[in-house]
């Protein structure tokens, strides 16, 4: 299992996590969808674990599992040494404040009929603070994320996307979490202010030693915030490693393809996929049908293998791809 570098235990561990949805199809038959399929990871204190993938890869389902918004079909989730996967809602409640989430679209994440301050202080209602203290604490939080507390008295519609996303960070921090799940925190923002929010996230992490699980498709943000990265395709991690490894010497064709389309790979080794993400039958590589490097051996099941210390890939051709250094150097 891909391990985290932290020496003093991990904030969050997922072991062989799976989630299968049962869907009713148009013909009224049942079929199952393996949204997350045997995913393992560790996130250390103060560390950011980035998950990159396209829509339908299962990134957001991981978030739902971690927050126990849906129950895992299999596997374990260990939050600071405690198994939470089998807990019921009552048992999990004390842990809720320790793991929080920031959503992609801040406008839909806030109640339009309550002021921002009201929404932020809601998460502190169960704390022992007196109402007055609570207001002070909220103002302090808003100040921490760089939002003028006066703006907090406004309604969500009256703030810009960037301001409102700062408010959602403040809300996520309000209960004093250890872990924050960031679900595309900058995707709904304009390029010119994306960095403001990314910087706030980084500063808060350094100050509070927060563990982040970051889901994003924007390489600049992943590169800026993440320490380690997992690339996800159809419910599986296809590559896991330190940022330097994954961005500098990607081992999996899918990682290379994502970087090619983001204009982040040298012209010597671009990989362009055919078609689009679609579930496949069989036990072989799930990218098989789209991958330009596909060979007969790809129809065998592919395991996540550690090719260099901390750098894992799920492709038998990884050594060959890794030998090719023709990649634009990150950072």
């Amino acid at each position, binding site marked *: 299992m891909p391990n985290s570098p932290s020496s003093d235990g991990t904030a969050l561990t997922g072991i062989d996590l799976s989630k299968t949805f049962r869907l009713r199809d148009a013909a009224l038959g049942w079929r199952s969808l393996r949204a997350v399929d045997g995913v393992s990871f560790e996130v250390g204190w103060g560390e950011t674990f980035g998950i990159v993938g*396209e*829509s339908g890869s299962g990134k957001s389902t991981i978030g739902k599992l971690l927050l126990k918004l849906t129950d895992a079909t299999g596997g374990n989730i260990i939050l600071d040494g405690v198994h939470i996967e089998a807990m019921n809602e009552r048992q999990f409640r004390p842990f809720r404040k320790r793991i929080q989430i920031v959503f992609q679209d801040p406008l839909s994440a806030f109640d339009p009929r309550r002021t921002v301050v009201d929404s932020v202080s809601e998460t502190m209602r169960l704390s022992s603070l007196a109402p007055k203290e609570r207001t002070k604490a909220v103002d302090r939080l808003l100040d921490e994320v760089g939002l003028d507390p006066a703006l907090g008295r406004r309604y969500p519609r*009256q703030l*810009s*996307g*960037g*301001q409102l996303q700062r408010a959602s960070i403040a809300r996520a921090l309000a209960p004093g979490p250890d872990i924050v799940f960031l679900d595309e925190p900058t995707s709904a923002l*304009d*390029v*010119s*202010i*994306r*960095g*403001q929010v*990314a*910087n706030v996230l*980084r500063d808060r992490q350094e100050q509070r030693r927060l563990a982040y699980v970051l889901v994003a*498709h924007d390489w*600049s*943000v992943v*590169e*800026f915030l993440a320490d380690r990265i997992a690339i996800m395709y159809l419910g599986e991690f296809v590559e896991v490693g330190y940022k330097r490894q994954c961005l500098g010497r990607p081992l999996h064709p899918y990682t290379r*393809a*994502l970087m*090619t*389309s*983001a*204009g982040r790979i040298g012209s010597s080794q671009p990989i*362009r*996929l055919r078609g*689009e*993400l*679609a579930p496949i039958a069989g036990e072989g590589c799930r990218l098989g049908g789209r991958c330009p490097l596909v060979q007969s051996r790809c129809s065998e099941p592919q395991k996540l293998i550690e090719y260099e210390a901390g750098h894992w890939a799920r492709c038998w051709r990884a050594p060959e791809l890794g030998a090719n250094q023709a990649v634009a150097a990150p*950072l």
Partner: protein
Amino acid sequence: MRQAGPSEALLSIRNLDIEIGYGADKHYPVQDVDLTVPSRQVSGLVGESGSGKSLTALAVVGMLPQSARQISGTIEFADIDICHAEESHLQRIRGRQIALLFQNPRASLHPLKKVGSQIAYLAMRHQHLSRASAWNHAIDLMAAAGISEPKARAGDYPHQFSGGMAQRAALAMALACSPELLIADEPTSGLDTTLREQIVELLATQVRDRKMTVLLITHDIGLIKHHTDTVTVLYAGRIMEAGATRHVLSSPRNPYTRELMRADQQVDGTRMYAIPGNVPPVLPRWTGCPFSSRCDLATDVCREVLPPLRLIAGREVACHHAE
């Protein structure tokens, strides 16, 4: 781009002003915008949300939302005065001479009609093809748009299409009457990264093969850089810089263009670059430079006097300090 000369411009917008709302709520999302789209070129319109780029495009086809009014300016498309054209005339232009491609393909496809019939309808309506030949035409277009097994897929409904396939279908629909001008408004924003390139490539080939003119509206500087001949940079309803893409992006002269490119690219280890401040959500009638509150170089003159577009280094720049 202005040097192109009036004879070569397929679309020409002059002093376009659009207002929204009434009384104290009145605001001005598009202010004094000039835009020339030279024939058989790809022109880019780049800006952040709220810059007025989409409203400008809607004004071209006379499809402004009801809350918005065009208060002045002229729009000429192939010698037709769009602003004074009858609705029935506009209906004949839309789809046949000017086609639109939007960000969300599902919004431009009727959910209860077969994809093939929607494409065929355009050919029947505008080109008066028979039902059977329109259907075959639709299948050809879907094949050209990169949809595999077009014969079978033509009988499918939009919900049976994935996001990428739906955008291909929307493109097939846009191409149905071989329009002279294609307005593509964020055509790839809703798509996954690996699909974006496929769609843009497809768009580029079709445009070349059919000798179309394209107005590409996007917030993505990468797209502008690789796929447009000319670019117009909008900020808060006004043009900041306009000219040949290779000039503008290689040596931007307006501080906003410069900052936007920097925010797009720059990560320096511990800080990610961002332009300080926010795009104003509601736009007043500007009396100074709209970017002055966020600009490093701003002086009193920037805050008080609206910078006119000046010709500098082969492109037009609205900045008092540009040289």
